[in-house]
């Protein structure tokens, strides 16, 4: 009987364009679109930023030694054009403020003499930091000039450069690429799945309970000799399946983006991600997502049963998304790790467990504990749903 109800509810759900859009189309397309946009926008932005000819206003003359040195820096470090202000610092900074020039360069009037006297010359770059890439360009220019000047001084003073370098420090990263990705990006994957799992559950949960109440079909169903818990489970299975389907489609979208569409330009990153998206990890991930999705269904159904209309249910369940996403976001912070306490916090434990799974350093006792905790909260949520669905005040408008 549960299967009959499940089959009918599923048939009705997949015929609803809105649910289908949330359940399949959006999760499937979101990653290819998102990665495509991010990669293309960032690459075109960095390309255009790199090719941009920076207009640099200088306090002195374009024949000054500093400007000549800057001019000698290869164009591969970014093209530039100098505009002389011949000592008019007020106009220089005003023009920079008014964006007539991109950067303002001020330096001591006796700049070359100070350097020749082995003194410290002042250089001031006025830069609008909201223009991404400008500071990096200046730092690149100045590193080159400073390194040249330092070498000149070593020669002038007859000092061996090596003697001024007491340490040669090497920082060796003992974490594998997989661990690094697990730590840095591992939290994002379950976060996305949680968001999509929630969204995937939301529309069917509202439609199959509040929607049925609003349309008057629940009353018809309850006059049949089917036990109420069977009706509940049949409907709940569709809600859970929709949530899992949304997560699954998101995963397929991600996989297709990486494997087939070559949207990630860095081949090393693609290789590491491909290494992570293996069948055993995906199975474990879905094993964790299953109780989580049941939990989502279990918290949405009582709300949907209690409310009198689709709109009312939607207005309560939609903000709940934030409550669910908060513990998931907590798992993205560095330093929060899977332990006996965090394994007992629903949702957070899923994020942390997935991070560990991706990083390849999972503790199977903690994995089991997280799984048991999620099963327990899912069971409580199902029980609450059952109680609410059994109340006659909730099922008849």
């Amino acid at each position, binding site marked *: 009987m549960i299967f009959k109800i499940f089959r009918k509810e599923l*048939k009705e759900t997949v015929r609803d364009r809105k649910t289908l859009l949330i359940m399949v189309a959006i999760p499937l397309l979101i990653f290819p679109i998102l990665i495509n946009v991010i990669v293309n926008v960032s690459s075109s932005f960095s390309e255009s930023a790199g090719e941009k000819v920076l207009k640099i206003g200088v306090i002195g003359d374009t024949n000054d030694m500093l400007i000549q040195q800057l001019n000698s820096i290869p164009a591969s470090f970014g093209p530039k054009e100098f505009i002389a202000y011949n000592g008019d610092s007020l106009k220089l900074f005003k023009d920079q403020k008014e964006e007539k020039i991109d950067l303002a360069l001020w330096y001591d009037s006796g700049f070359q003499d100070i350097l020749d006297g082995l003194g410290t010359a002042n250089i001031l770059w006025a830069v609008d930091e909201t223009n991404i890439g400008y500071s990096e360009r200046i730092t690149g220019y100045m590193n080159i000039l400073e390194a040249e000047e330092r070498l000149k001084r070593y020669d002038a003073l007859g000092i061996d450069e090596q003697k001024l370098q007491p340490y040669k420090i090497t920082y060796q990263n003992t974490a594998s690429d997989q661990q690094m990705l697990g730590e840095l990006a591992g939290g994002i994957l379950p976060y996305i799945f949680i968001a999509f799992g929630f969204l995937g559950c939301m529309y069917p949960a509202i439609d199959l309970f509040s929607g049925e109440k609003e349309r008057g079909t629940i009353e*018809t169903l309850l006059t049949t*000799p089917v*036990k109420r818990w069977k009706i509940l489970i049949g409907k709940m299975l569709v809600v859970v399946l929709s949530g899992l389907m949304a997560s699954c489609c998101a995963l397929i979208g991600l996989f297709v983006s990486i494997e087939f569409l070559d949207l990630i330009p860095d081949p090393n990153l693609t290789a590491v991600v491909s290494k992570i998206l293996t069948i055993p990890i995906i199975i474990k991930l879905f094993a964790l997502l299953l109780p989580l999705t049941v939990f989502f269904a279990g918290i949405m159904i009582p709300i949907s049963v209690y409310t009198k209309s689709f709109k009312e249910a939607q207005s309560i369940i939609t903000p709940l998304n934030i409550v669910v996403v908060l513990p998931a976001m907590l798992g993205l912070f560095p330093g929060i790790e899977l332990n006996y306490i965090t394994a007992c916090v629903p949702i957070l434990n899923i994020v942390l467990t997935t991070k560990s799974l991706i990083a390849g350093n999972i503790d199977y006792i903690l994995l089991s504990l997280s799984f048991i905790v999620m099963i327990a909260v899912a069971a409580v949520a199902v029980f609450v749903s059952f109680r609410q669905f059994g109340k006659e005040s909730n099922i*008849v408008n």
Partner: protein
Amino acid sequence: MIIVKNVSKEFRLSKEQRKEHPANDKYTLAVNNLSFSCNPGEVFSLLGPNGAGKTTTLRMLSTILQPSSGTIEICGVDAVKYPREARRKIGFLTGSTGLYARLSANEVIDYFASLYNVPNNVLKERKAYLYDLLNMNEFASKKIGKMSTGMKQKVSICRTMIHDPEVLILDEPTSGLDVITAEGIIQLIRDYKSQNKTVLFSSHIMGEVDLLSDRLAIIHNGSLKHEGTMSEFRTEMQGQSLTGAFINIVQS
């Protein structure tokens, strides 16, 4: 056969409802100590103005709601103690019941037949019989969402009768229908009665009540005001119209 004995139903009021309620009570009595019976082979009309407790009574008979006190017997089954057994014997249709807009008439009928465990061969026969009777063959494959009100009502009635229930409970079955469709439904109720089955229906259309009923009960404010045969009622009317007599009873 339906036997209703001393049935009452009270609802807990919400805080907002309590403010509107004159006595500020926590509960309101929707049905008060109601007793009546409907026999096989007869059409029983339940009449009452809006808010009289008709829908609550019908919902209790269909086991959607449980009475606060009293007993309901459906074809010898205690419907309060064994609601599932009672449901097998009931075909229930109210004005507020809806259909699944994204399914076709065929899919709806098949689904409900499966919920009543109607065997496939019986389902085929019942569908053929009811589709012919209700002129449903033309739109059997059409999605409910694309149907007219009359078509939907026919599908609802077919859904109600697909498992060949011993008791039909119909709440305003012809409400909002054109005269031709309404006439078809009236004919169907008569056919059902002739098969020695129990039909209980509520209606606001006095002509229909006059035409169909063998017995009737009038309720007001949850209490029974009148119960008897239609012929007795006509005698008591003393030349008044049916509507006039109904108003007199309610206001007395």
